[in-house]
């Protein structure tokens, strides 16, 4: 092997050495998009699992398991309302991002709080739905169909809960004036992804028989 002398790159100009990246995209944003792409695989796996097992209630004689299916207990008007709430939270989130870009911190904070509240409402709706299902006799371990359903929708709920925590943190950081517009944009990406996943779950799990 030959030795290669590394020459100093004095002639290379970095306009801002903190933010310059080889891709031209900021690292946090690129990292978030990469994470979201990988999350597609995670949710894809769980949706596929639900599709495989949704018609397999555990009513096998001699084996334990409930014969109930989650789809028999769906309350579509109620779930439609929670879907609308999550869709509305996407609007408030994008308005928060726009306000952050315009440096209108008051409106940004208002929209962030609104998004967190709507996210909380969605979570409340999911807790209510799960409670109703358990009251009807469909627990997490009732059968494989129920396990697949709770794992899929529960993991989505966990994503929403993490998003709400991040939104609350963003509001606190904004109050301390240490929140960057880019941070709000990256948070917005996460939140919209949660909404996108629900769009798919709502159609495939709840609406398609």
């Amino acid at each position, binding site marked *: 092997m030959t030795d290669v002398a590394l020459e100093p790159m004095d002639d290379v100009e970095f306009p801002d050495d903190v*933010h310059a990246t080889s891709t031209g*995209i900021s690292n946090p944003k690129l990292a978030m998009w990469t994470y979201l792409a990988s999350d597609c695989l995670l949710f894809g796996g769980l949706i596929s699992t639900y599709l495989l097992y949704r018609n397999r209630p555990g009513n096998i004689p001699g084996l334990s398991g409930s014969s109930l299916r989650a789809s028999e207990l769906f309350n579509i008007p109620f779930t439609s309302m929670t879907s609308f709430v999550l869709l509305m939270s996407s609007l408030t989130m994008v308005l928060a991002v726009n306000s952050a870009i315009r440096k209108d911190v008051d409106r940004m904070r208002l929209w962030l709080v609104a998004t967190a509240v709507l996210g909380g409402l969605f979570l409340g709706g999911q807790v209510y739905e799960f409670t109703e299902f358990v009251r009807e006799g469909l627990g997490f371990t009732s059968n494989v169909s129920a396990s697949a359903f709770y794992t899929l929708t529960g993991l989505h709920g966990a994503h929403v809960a993490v998003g709400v925590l991040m939104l609350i943190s963003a509001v606190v950081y904004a109050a301390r004036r240490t929140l960057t517009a880019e941070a709000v944009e990256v948070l917005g990406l996460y939140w919209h992804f949660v909404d996108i996943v629900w769009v798919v779950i709502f159609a495939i799990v709840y609406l398609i028989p």
Partner: protein
Amino acid sequence: MSATIDVDDDSPVHPGEHHDHGPSDATYFKVFWILVAITALEVSTYFWDVWFGESSWSLAVPLLILLMVVKFVLIASVFMHLRFDSKLLTRIFYFGLAVACIVYLVALAVMNIFTDNGNPWFNDPPPAVTPSAVVTGEDTGG
């Protein structure tokens, strides 16, 4: 309140990065109402069998999938700014999505979810297991 966001105003416009974040609030509201209308149409399909009969499901299922894709693309393009950002981000996201779709469609096909060929362990309700089948270890499929 007169607080300001700590935005790095001196940050340069990097090659490939679009600092024009595109749509106005009014555009976002427009897209939102389109999404609401699509959601309303989706929900209406739930009642189609009552309104139009069981046969309407053959139209409802493809329509639901189409509407789901339209909503997905609208949110990703406009709300997530993919349409206005670097193309690299679009490629990264849709690559992950495409890999997920291909992998799981193949997995579902292997497990016979798209065909009803008698495999009792996936999608179709399983057959009744009789005590004799359990004792003798009779193969019920899979």
